[in-house]
């Protein structure tokens, strides 16, 4: 990316984009293989007269002895029912198949693209009618319809192209319409409208650039379908008798005794030609899809990386602590990239009934840290050092089976977006009951149902909502249900990951009050992960401020707010609006948090720190103990100690 900034601005943005695309595409092996397969066959079709050993049209010197000869030096692919050279026909047949495929697909793509775009973008009465028509055409089986139309009209090449073309647009129209609808509802289109852009401008500058990638992939698919359709029609005896395509070669061979004679060559090679082209197109389409519409393709059931301990002194758990995290470090390891040091050397303790706030901005590693406690990291994440002691047991070392008995039973999680954290096709009651069944399988059914009702009641949800699905709940209710689920097995620790972030202030206050009252009532220990300093001040006992994956400051709540020692904590408090001082101008922290795969050499906050000096830029500060319950990692703190 740097190079594009340094070089003089190129004349054509499109050329640059095309080159960029090509650079990425060449790295995609599937796509390249497909393209190569296609290029070979296209070259063969273009140079057919030069390649084919025999002229395809002349069977002048036709002799009975030439019929169905097996492959030989003179006839590589043998001869067919008319004594013609199969290889020559094969080479010329490529022309017919490709011409029909490309021209028919062209018609389909134009019709489908325009109809999809119009129906998706304008969406008025006529456009809905258009889409209804598309729906009908999509349901009507297309091959029988093609057969009927070609059978009723003249089976000329033009006709076949036309019929395949005008019946093959339906899927394209659907795909383009749904993509257009998706792009249309995006905020940047609304922004363009607000700027004053008309429909033409919006389609050209905003819709088309984002529909194009989908359309390109679809086009490749449509070409392959058209080639398949042509060969099928020809095989069924509906091909143009003057243009010998692969499908027609198969039709003649199959209809004229190749089977009974055992002339496999007359049946095998034309078919392989079709497979070659269609496979080439399919691979090309797959490759384009991967490049143009990349998806991550990773998921939560992929195996996690094993924990490693980099040979530090064996530490023993502190007496009396319920949960103790010692020197925990987590890296994200992606092939070909430097490891992202997401969490480094974090330690904290949590006692029974205590509420610790884990505070930091997005990307500071707080969610990674929280997930690692129950070894729920995504597959690229790895615990590279440190221990997590729960009641004296090291969770980084226990076996998977044992860990599954601790998950939820002892430590449960309230996730951020409850809408996504609840399964949309199962009722809320079922999902709560599931956790109980897993950990207390002996509980009788009635008792189980009573327990679910009791849990919902505890968080203020009426029992009749038990049978409802998550989408029938409001945002606040879903978060309550999530809390009820977390309480299901009477855990000792609850990890709450930004449980109020997406909620309105009043609902947020309701949830906070609920958590606080549950803590008092049930003696829960809570880890409260948040970016909101105000929320932390309201309910936490102690606070760990994270910045760029490390502990900036760790202290009891009063110290953090009234005697912060780390410049980041101090600056963050100044940037946070305080309603009790409405006239005060907010100060901001210049710059942006570091990227975890490109961390600065010294203190991670140094580039933004107003007090940074030379040492900060070269040496990472250690965590200094400033009091019984006060730690900060800053060179200035050390100097003042």
């Amino acid at each position, binding site marked *: 990316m740097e190079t594009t900034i340094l070089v003089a601005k190129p004349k054509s943005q499109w050329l640059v984009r095309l080159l960029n695309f090509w650079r990425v595409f060449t790295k995609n092996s599937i796509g390249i293989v497909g393209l190569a397969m296609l290029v070979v066959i296209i070259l063969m079709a273009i140079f057919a007269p030069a390649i084919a050993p025999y002229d395809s049209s002349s069977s002048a010197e036709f002799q009975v002895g030439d019929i169905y000869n097996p492959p030989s030096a003179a006839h590589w692919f043998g001869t067919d029912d008319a004594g013609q050279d199969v290889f020559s026909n094969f080479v010329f047949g490529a022309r017919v198949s490709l011409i029909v495929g490309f021209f028919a697909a062209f018609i389909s793509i134009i019709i489908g693209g325009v109809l999809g775009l119009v129906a998706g973008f304008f969406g008025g009465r006529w456009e809905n009618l258009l889409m209804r028509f598309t729906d009908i055409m999509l349901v009507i*089986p297309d091959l029988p319809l093609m057969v*009927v139309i070609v059978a009723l009209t003249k089976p000329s090449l033009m006709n076949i192209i036309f019929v395949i073309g005008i019946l093959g647009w339906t899927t394209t129209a659907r795909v383009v319409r749904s993509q257009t609808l998706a792009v249309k509802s995006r905020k940047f289109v609304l922004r363009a409208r607000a700027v004053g852009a008309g429909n033409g401008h919006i389609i050209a500058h905003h819709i088309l650039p984002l529909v194009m990638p989908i359309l390109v992939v679809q086009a490749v698919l449509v070409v392959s379908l058209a080639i398949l359709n042509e060969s099928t029609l020809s095989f069924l005896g509906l091909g143009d008798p003057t243009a010998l395509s692969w499908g027609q070669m198969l039709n003649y061979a199959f209809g004229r005794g190749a*089977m009974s004679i055992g002339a496999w060559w007359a049946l095998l090679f034309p078919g392989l030609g079709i497979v070659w082209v269609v*496979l080439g197109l*399919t691979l090309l389409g797959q490759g384009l899809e991967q490049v143009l519409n990349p998806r991550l393709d*990773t998921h939560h*059931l992929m195996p996690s990386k094993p924990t490693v301990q980099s040979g530090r002194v064996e530490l023993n758990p502190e007496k009396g602590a319920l949960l103790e995290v010692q020197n925990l470090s987590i890296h994200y390891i992606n092939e070909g990239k430097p490891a992202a040091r997401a969490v480094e050397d974090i330690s904290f303790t949590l006692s029974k009934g205590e509420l610790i706030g884990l505070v930091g901005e997005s990307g500071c590693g707080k969610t990674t840290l929280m997930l690692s406690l129950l070894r*729920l990291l995504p597959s690229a994440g790895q615990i590279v050092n440190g221990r997590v002691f729960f009641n004296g047991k090291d969770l980084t070392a226990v076996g998977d089976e044992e860990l599954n008995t601790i998950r939820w039973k002892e430590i449960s999680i309230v996730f951020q977006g409850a809408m996504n954290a609840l399964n949309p096709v199962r009722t809320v009651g079922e999902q709560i009951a599931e956790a109980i069944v*897993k950990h207390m399988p002996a509980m009788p059914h009635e008792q189980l149902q009573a327990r679910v009702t009791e849990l919902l009641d505890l968080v203020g949800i009426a029992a009749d909502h038990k049978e409802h699905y998550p989408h029938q709940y409001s945002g606040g209710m879903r978060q309550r249900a999530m809390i009820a689920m977390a309480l299901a097995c009477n855990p000792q620790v609850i990890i709450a990951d930004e449980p109020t972030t997406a909620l309105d202030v009043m609902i947020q206050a309701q949830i906070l009050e609920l958590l606080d009252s549950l803590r008092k009532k049930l003696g829960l220990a809570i880890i409260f992960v948040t970016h909101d300093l105000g929320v932390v001040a309201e309910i936490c006992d102690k606070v760990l401020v994270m910045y760029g994956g490390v502990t900036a400051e760790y202290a009891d709540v009063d110290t953090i707010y009234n005697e912060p020692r780390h410049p980041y904590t101090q600056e963050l408090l100044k940037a946070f609006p305080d309603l009790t001082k409405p006239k005060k101008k907010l100060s901001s922290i210049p710059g942006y948090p570091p990227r975890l795969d490109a961390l600065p050499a010294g203190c991670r906050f140094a580039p933004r720190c107003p007090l940074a000096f030379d040492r900060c830029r070269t040496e990472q500060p250690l965590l200094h103990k400033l009091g019984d319950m006060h730690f900060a990692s800053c060179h200035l703190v050390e100097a003042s100690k």
Partner: protein
Amino acid sequence: MNRTRTLLKKIAWAVFTILFVIVLNFFLFRVLPGDPARAGIRDPRLKKEAVEMLRVRFGLDKPVINCFESLNPIKVGSCAVNPLDTQFFIYIGNLFQGELGISYHTNRPVADILSERLWNTVLLIGAGQILSIIIGVIFGVFAAWKAHTSIDYSAVITSLMVWSLPTFWLAIILLFWGSSNGLPLAGKATPGSSSLPLLQQWADIFRHMLLPTLTYTIVYMGEYTLIMRSSLIDVLSEDYILTAKAKGLSTFQILKDHALKNAMLPLVTIIAINLGFTVAGAIQIEAVFSWPGLGGAIFEAVGRRDFPVLQGAFLLIAVTVIFANLIADLTYSYLDPRVQTE
């Protein structure tokens, strides 16, 4: 309340689509140049009276639709007759009585020919669909679960390759293979087998079905594998899977209770949309294996220019697909709670 409304809407829509197909079907065969009057009765050896007789026999002497005489390419009949005594309304009327006309080739009623063949096609497509879906889902689940391993890559490459096979060609290749392995090559039953005990008859049909069903399964399982794979990967990367994992559920429990149903939902829609395309496969397979189904009927009718059979077969296939589509659609709204309550 809303659910009944959606249900009624869907059924009404299916009925409308069927009506559309009926009208389309009628006009295709009247408007396109190869209309039956010219193509079917164009034998130069026939005397004029004989042609006229045939016209009357097939109802071609009537106007197409009363007041669209220009649509009647052979300009027979006049506007003065009973407004319902036209080819179009007679066609509609006959349809409602289950009559689809008479075959040019065999002189038998088309409805009789097709009704015995419909079930053979349904049997073939049914068996093929069920097998390809089961195999596709299993492969897809393994590919998604073991994403980015060699299991996944081989499943994807295999799927792309079988997807690229022309159905009729695969059928021919399997026919070749079958002929050297003593499998029956054509038809649904060995001639004369109807005198055998029922169990042996079934075994005979089963042996005849092996190759066609195998072809069908291979051709369609690739697509289902790919769809299942990507659908399951999407589901498995959802937050609720992380919740399930945090609950301490085992991998098997997560797949069974949280992932499969969610991932199968898009598959139901795809299956519904695909039905129209899978008929294409049936035509090719039936053509190669001489399977006595609708596809085979189409293949034969094309060769003999037997238009009433072609017309009837197309209509029957279209209506069956629309009906199956409706069922898939209703199943989907029954399975997905989000649709029910919207």
